[in-house]
């Protein structure tokens, strides 16, 4: 019962978030920008401008425009792209898979690098391994992702041609962008796993597990790591959002065909319907991602199942 209530509340929150996003884009594009100037050729006459304003409904009072726009949006109609052919939402939908691939790969890098490094660093505190992990954490946190991406291209795609410099053809082209995207989150996961493991390895139930003769591997993996993963789960939702946000710049650096690059291009072309559609999709996926992580978390850790929001 409580679970269902919670789900309902969170879904409502998602709707509110999307509404706020759509409204922000509406205000920014209609109040500050001039959609029609970006559509017209440079030699357009005043009558041409008048015609296009009439056609797009830009002569109506703002509140009417807003109402019409919201009404259309609720029915899934986010308008036609100004610069590409077709409904904005279809253009965005075309690029969803690219961003999903990149984000998933980034998450795999983040977890695949962060968790083992964190565990090793915790088990051998003060060792070279620990220092290496800390170094990765510090650099991962401080290096701007676009600069990291360019360095990776410089060393691994131009100095030695192990990976392509850009594009999205095959698995090899995914490696560099995924790494550039995932390193920041890897640093976060590493730090959390490390402190979690240090914490848990001193507890009584680990001593018991050792005392009953389990081998160290089982103690660490089955008893220790499982416990240390709880805080990692907590920030997984936040990190997922960060990865989606980070993919915007990474897609530009690596010319990766995804929503982020489409959005940047559309923003620079003042193609507001596409921008709107893109932001709605991104906002929805971040909030829904958070929701899924939250729900999984509650299933995994029964202790917080009864807690409020």
């Amino acid at each position, binding site marked *: 019962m409580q679970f269902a209530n919670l789900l309902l509340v969170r879904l409502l929150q998602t709707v*509110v*978030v999307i509404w*706020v*996003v759509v409204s*922000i*884009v509406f205000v*920014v*594009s209609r109040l*500050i*920008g001039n959609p029609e100037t970006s559509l017209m050729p440079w030699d357009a006459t005043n009558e041409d401008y008048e015609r296009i304003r009439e056609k797009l409904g830009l002569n109506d009072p703002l509140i009417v425009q807003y109402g019409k726009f919201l009404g259309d949006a609720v029915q899934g109609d986010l308008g036609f792209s100004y610069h590409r052919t077709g409904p904005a939402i279809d253009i965005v939908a075309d690029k969803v898979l690219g961003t999903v691939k990149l984000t998933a790969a980034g998450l795999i890098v983040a977890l695949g690098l962060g968790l083992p490094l964190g565990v090793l660093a915790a088990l051998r*505190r*003060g060792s070279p391994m620990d220092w290496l992990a800390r170094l990765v954490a*510090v*650099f991962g*946190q*401080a*290096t*701007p992702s*676009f*600069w990291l991406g*360019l*360095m990776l*291209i*410089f060393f691994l795609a*131009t100095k030695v041609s192990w990976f392509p410099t850009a594009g999205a053809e095959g698995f090899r082209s995914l490696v560099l962008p995924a790494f550039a995207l995932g390193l920041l989150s890897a640093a*976060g996961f590493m*730090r*959390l796993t490390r*402190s979690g493991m*240090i*914490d848990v390895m001193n507890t009584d139930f680990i001593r018991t597990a050792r005392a009953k003769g389990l081998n160290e591997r089982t103690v660490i993996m089955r008893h220790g790591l499982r416990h240390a993963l709880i*805080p990692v789960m907590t*920030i997984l939702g936040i990190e997922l*959002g960060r990865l*989606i*946000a980070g993919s*915007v*710049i990474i897609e*530009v650096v690596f010319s990766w065909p995804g929503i*982020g690059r489409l*959005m*940047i291009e559309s*923003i*620079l072309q*003042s193609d507001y319907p596409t*921008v709107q559609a*893109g*932001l709605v999709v*991104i*906002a929805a996926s*971040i*909030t829904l991602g*958070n929701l899924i992580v939250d729900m999984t978390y509650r299933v995994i850790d029964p202790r917080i199942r009864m807690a409020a929001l």
Partner: protein
Amino acid sequence: MAAHAEAAIEIEARRSWGRSYFTRRYLLVLPPMVIMVLFLIGGIFADVIAPGDPGQTHLLSRLEAPVFSGGTSEFPLGTDHVGRDIWTRIVHGARVSLIVVAIVVPGAALFGTAVGMFAGWRGGIVGQLLMRYVDVQLALPAILFAVLLGAVLGASLRNVIIILLVWTWTVYARLIRAEVLSLKEREFVVASLAAGGSNWWIMRKQLLPNVFNTIVVVMTLEIPIVIVAEASLSFLGVGAPVEQATWGRMITEARNYLTHAWWVMWMPGLALMLVALSGNLVGDWLRDLLDPRLRNLG
């Protein structure tokens, strides 16, 4: 709860590393501090350190190598694709970053703290609405809204500053609100209320001093974030205008010369990375010193 556990772990870790921990920590934080000071000096005295015009092109000496890589001392760090002196541009780029930081960080701290204090102390519907807005903004990719604003407002340093202010104030608001909410329940605040202390007096004399460390620590940690954000905006083409030398724009323009003139991209990139790294290390150090509870801020 997690924060307490982590703090306890850290204290234990420090003990196990021996008494020299703090001295060692000082030595470790010294180089980044020096870099930050150099960044500060470079930004303030840009005209003295690099008196040339950062936009001056030398079409006969395009893509010239730095002095340590076979170039001449006329262009110590080499030149870019239109023959502009990279050293001059980096120093003047530092000035742009510094101006942005000097306005955005205190500005966002002031506004965010005010909102956080209000939402924590008075709350009410307005406070709730403000915090919901903060939640929404923090949950969404700020970079997209920043680029949108940048594209609509147009390229200028003033607009970059506006964008970054809008981008960063929410962090302070959320943290300060949480702190005020817990301070509100503390006995000394309750006692002041009971003794008839005015809201204004309590905020000024009791809440502000208690959240001051948090503000200072977050401001320090925000310095590298703002620098990188400004560079990212320039990199995406919505930062400061073309005629202004910024690190982000230098890196973007250098992308096409990556293979045959490495220095064009590496010099501004290294400057950016060094300053971001140093800012982070100094911020971490200050946080451990002043406010270790913020450790799990990430």
